[in-house]
């Protein structure tokens, strides 16, 4: 699986999920309709999106996705066509939500992320765990080998559903 596209650089740390999707949009019982409100809570969100209208990969600073557990942040990214986020670190819950929804969370050292902020297009080889910026040399990263399956094939709930007999057996022996 290759995720390729132009980038949306957000050269700041601590982009919280309230900035990614404000709470007043969390009023649906499905996962649709979030994309049009992506980054509305970020003071310069609309400006950044207008500068990079076709972007599909976010490149951001440390601790991306901190704060609220709202999975709507991942749904909003997907809804706007974003398939990956590259950052030096992610907040735990967003990190899990990204994997569970097929948004590729790429962790790279801060100085590498800083360099990527200047790239135009990035191609991410999810299976091979490498990426290339503007056709340059491949840069390696690591994905969680288990959660990577959920990016490549979906099916987080199918995976857990298949675990139910093991869970019941464990509980019976508890």
């Amino acid at each position: 699986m290759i995720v390729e596209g132009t980038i949306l650089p957000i050269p700041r740390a601590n982009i919280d999920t309230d900035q990614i999707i404000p709470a007043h949009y969390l009023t649906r019982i499905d996962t649709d309709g979030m994309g049009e409100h992506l980054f509305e809570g970020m003071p310069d969100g609309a400006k950044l999106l207008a500068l990079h209208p076709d972007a599909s990969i976010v490149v951001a600073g440390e601790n991306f996705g901190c704060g609220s557990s709202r999975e709507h942040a991942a749904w909003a990214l997907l809804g706007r066509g974003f398939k990956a986020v590259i950052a030096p670190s992610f907040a735990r819950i967003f990190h899990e939500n990204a994997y569970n929804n097929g948004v590729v969370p790429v962790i790279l050292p801060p100085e590498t992320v800083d360099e990527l902020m200047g790239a135009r297009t990035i191609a991410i080889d999810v299976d091979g765990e490498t990426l290339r910026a503007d056709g340059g040399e491949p840069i390696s990263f690591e994905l969680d080998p288990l959660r990577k399956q959920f990016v490549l094939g979906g099916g987080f709930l199918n995976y857990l559903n298949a675990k139910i007999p093991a869970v019941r057996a464990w509980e019976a022996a508890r």
Partner: protein
Amino acid sequence: MPRSLFDKIWDAHVIEELPGGNALVFVDLVVAHEITTPPGALAIEKDFGDKLYEPDRIVAMIDHVAPAKDAATAIQAQTVRTWAKRQNIRFHDIGNNGICHVLVPERGYVTPGMTVCCGDSHTCTLGALGAFALGIGTTAQAGAMLAGCLILQRPKVMRIEITGELPPDATAKDLTLSVIATIGFRGGTGYVLEYTGSAVRALNMEQRMTLCNMAIEAGATTGIIAADETTAAYLAATPAAPAGWAALQADPDAQYAATVTIDGSAIRPVVSWGTNPGENSPIDGFVPLDADAESLAYMDLKPGQPLKSIAVDQAFIGSCTNSRIGDLRAAAAVLRGQHVSVPTIITPGSQAVRRQAEREGLHDIFQDAGALWTHSSCGPCLGMSMGVIAAGTRVVSSSNRNFPGRMGDGGRVHLAAPAVVAASAILGRIAAPAEVAQRELAPV
């Protein structure tokens, strides 16, 4: 091998180890509210025959927007309502509800040693009861409801010892904000914060909940405090009065990935000045000279500005951080006989807290002071309902997040303890409770 408190709970709940350092972890209780639950519940209905692992291991409530504010939130509430009824899930509807992190402990649903999850980041609050409680996304919550388990990376454990005792004017809110300032806004990422020490032991359960509530604001997976006689007395007084739980403790020689020691006697009342909770300073102090420029630009503040010079447009006492009866008593002690000078909203954390406050006459004190006394809801804390602030305005709030736009697009939030919020509401600027008392003593 000696183990931490967290290690003991983790080890007792791991079903199997999974690739990549992940583990399948059994979940004793899933807490479900109307904002994050519906897509997961509907996915289980659509794709998995509507079968839940064990409905008895779920408790549901309407808490974020209570009652519904519009057609969309009414559909959210109705979805949870009909789902809970269909699945025979314990359900707390409006009138009998509360913010999940207030209601769940006060009913006695959580006991020490349990694992608890909820599609809500402040689930770490419940670590105050000696449980491993964490916030997760909607899909992970659906997994916990479908299969009774979570997939988790084992977190490291940071021991945070608060020595000595807190000064009389310092609260659990000041302590938790100070912990975040000490370890950093993302300093807890990848860790469970195991709070210990004499100043922690001296906290009552509500105060311990306030301390654990903001572990997520340091990026931590959760906070946790070992159960003791305070925990036992609290649980015995709950409606469920759970029995049969064991008070797990860390082994004396347990090894920790990190250890932090904070002098409790040095904790001062603090107020946030920036756009994350770690950006806070003692109320008697100033906006730091090296404060982040972007934070100050958003907050419209200058380095070196005295915090007490900051005028506020609105005040809010509520949220899962500070909305319990002790918080309301602290606010009432300041507001008694006074009058607020800015719009002030006081929102109890649960309907049970509301009723207790009214038995004590606190609602009269609040309303005599000109504050709006509401029913329970998450309300304006997350900018969803019941007091969302206008762009460009400034609120002093007992809640937990001061992110840009958190309580309303373009709004500015200063986090503080309830008594400080009350004093600020009276004086129309960031103010310490002692200033209200001094004003009374001053010659007219």
